[in-house]
């Protein structure tokens, strides 16, 4: 597959397209973008929105933005309300040549770029809206939001709760129809803990939603109906099959001293047992092998807890198990962790890997796209550039692998990104690694807070000539900023328009929002 075209002539490129095939799904974008960008010389301009730190006209401050949903709306938190905006294009007229003209003063206003559609109250007085939790269901244009009360660190041991996991009095998920802002359904979890940061604790696949209750170690599978109702269809944790609970209560004699292991844990242990059993064919050596590999570590296996879950398809879950102390924090420490593929219908664990497994790494390298494959989410999934669909990214990954001092440490570091966090990667073509090269520590498709730099972030063209195509300067446009203050920036790119936002937060200082667009 030829990655570059011989000439910049549009007609010849169209003819070439008949002969050379591009990546499936990216054909249109691939044709149009490389044409428009080199020819029109993308120039990103940043303009400060409100020098009073991102204040919008009412004097209320913008707390945050959420990823574009379907490309048509931007979502903003304002206190306890959710405000939905539609991006509009800045229009102005000038008497002289417009290109050299400076932007008019109204370019500094948020309203020139975004038009408010509606505002709905989500959180009540003692709750706050989780600013970085948002999942979008493309087919019906539903958005899932979450509010929670304050986290209490004293986790009183209640029945079924894991020690060491904090508790939140109430977490509520709201399903909102983004067209008009109607709240269709809500689901509350009380005295529970769900990891809401960056939507880690939930995963949306077609119309199925899974929510991981870390405190009670339950995976809730909910279905989003066309009417907008959230219906719980499965609860995996203590019991796996629907009639497990009934079976156990009717067959277990009262007065039995011990308690049963949770269903999912039992499945895990039985898989490890069968695998260890089959490793040694010799009968006499088998028991010894079991003792060493299984019984010796039995308590460690029992103490594993579910950290994170994703769907691989409608029937299979990919579950990360780990130790209790690593479960709540998002640190990238290299503790022992296991990945299991669980079939929800047969309730079997299909396979289990340790986080240092080379076999799992080779699947990660070849089939990473299938970890975030979502057949319904066509506008997003097809355009995410990764090392499995892009030869430049694969080269980069292999370079890092060859330079790594320890192979198992490298594999563990890569496995930290699994299970995939739902809708965490931006499908914007500016992050396409076959078009641009950029410093991934400063900016990347994955929505994450990063330390801000003084220098603008350069996007370099991958095709020869390798020139800087454009730069994004996340900081303040004017004046010297206090370099001692720690600044964190995050970026939001529109999935298809050349429009981006950079949000910069400094401790004890107002938030600065820049709008970057192509002139």
């Amino acid at each position: 597959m030829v990655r570059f075209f011989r000439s910049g002539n549009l007609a010849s490129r169209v003819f070439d397209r008949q002969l050379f095939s591009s990546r499936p799904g990216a054909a249109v974008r691939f044709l149009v973008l490389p044409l428009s960008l080199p020819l029109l010389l993308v120039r990103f301009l940043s303009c400060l929105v409100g020098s009073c730190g991102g204040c919008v006209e009412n004097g209320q401050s913008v707390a945050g933005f959420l990823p574009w949903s379907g490309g048509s709306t931007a979502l903003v938190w304002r206190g306890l309300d959710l405000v939905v905006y539609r991006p509009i294009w800045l229009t102005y007229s000038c008497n002289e040549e417009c290109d050299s003209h400076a932007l008019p003063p109204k370019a500094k206003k948020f309203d020139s770029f975004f038009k408010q559609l509606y505002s709905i109250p989500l959180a009540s007085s003692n709750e706050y809206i989780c600013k970085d939790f948002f999942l979008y269901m493309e087919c019906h244009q539903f958005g899932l939001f979450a509010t929670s009360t304050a986290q209490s660190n004293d986790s009183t041991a209640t029945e079924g709760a894991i020690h060491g996991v904090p508790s939140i009095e109430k977490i509520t998920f709201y399903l909102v129809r983004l067209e008009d802002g109607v709240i269709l359904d809500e689901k509350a979890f009380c005295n529970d803990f769900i990891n809401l940061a960056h939507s880690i604790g939930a995963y949306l696949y077609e119309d199925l939603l899974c929510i991981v209750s870390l405190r009670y170690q339950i995976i809730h599978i909910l279905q989003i109906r066309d009417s907008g109702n959230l219906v719980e269809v499965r609860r995996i944790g203590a019991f796996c099959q629907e009639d497990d609970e009934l079976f156990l209560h009717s067959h277990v004699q009262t007065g039995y001293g011990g308690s049963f292991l949770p269903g999912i844990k039992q499945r895990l242990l039985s898989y490890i047992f069968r695998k260890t059993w089959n490793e040694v064919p010799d009968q006499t050596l088998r028991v010894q092998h079991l003792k060493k590999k299984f019984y010796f570590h039995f308590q460690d296996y029992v103490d594993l807890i579910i950290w994170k879950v994703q769907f691989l398809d409608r029937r299979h879950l990919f579950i990360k198990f780990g130790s209790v102390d690593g479960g709540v924090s998002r640190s990238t420490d290299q503790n022992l962790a296991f990945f299991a593929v669980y079939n929800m219908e047969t309730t079997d664990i299909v396979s289990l890997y340790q986080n240092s497994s080379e076999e799992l790494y080779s699947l990660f390298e070849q089939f990473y796209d299938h970890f975030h494959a979502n057949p319904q989410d066509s506008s997003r999934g097809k355009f995410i550039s990764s090392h499995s669909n892009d030869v430049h990214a694969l080269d980069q990954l292999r370079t890092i692998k060859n330079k790594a001092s320890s192979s198992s440490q490298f594999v563990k570091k890569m496995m930290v990104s699994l299970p995939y966090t739902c809708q965490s990667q931006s499908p914007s073509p500016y992050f396409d690694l076959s078009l641009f090269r950029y410093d991934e520590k400063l900016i990347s498709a994955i929505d994450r807070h990063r330390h801000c730099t003084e220098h603008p972030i350069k996007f370099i063209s991958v095709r020869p000539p390798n020139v800087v195509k454009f730069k994004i300067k996340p900081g303040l446009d004017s004046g010297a900023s206090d370099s001692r203050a720690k600044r964190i920036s995050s970026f939001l790119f529109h999935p298809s328009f050349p429009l981006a936002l950079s949000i910069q937060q400094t401790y004890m200082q107002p938030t600065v929002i820049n709008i970057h667009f192509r002139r």
Partner: protein
Amino acid sequence: MGSPLGGWPSYNPHNFSQLVPADPSAQPSNVTPATYIATHRTDPPPNQVITTEPRNILLRHFYQKSEEKLRPKRAAPDNLAPENNNKQPRGTVADVGSQSNARS
């Protein structure tokens, strides 16, 4: 028209009226290229229906690798020392591996 392109449909047949063969002395070859004729029936089975595998390739790999791990390995035979002049009846291909393990 006699052009090597044959009588393919085109918007305007006169577009190719100016076409001049590169080598004027070359005659269009009358030799037809050899075709392959199968010696067996190439018809598909009568009731064959081709469908897409519902499991994606990642899941197929997970299942395949786990089946390899969970398949019970053949145990070595109890009789390790062959009794009659090292000759043992030849078993299936799978048995050969375990028998050679037993002998060594």
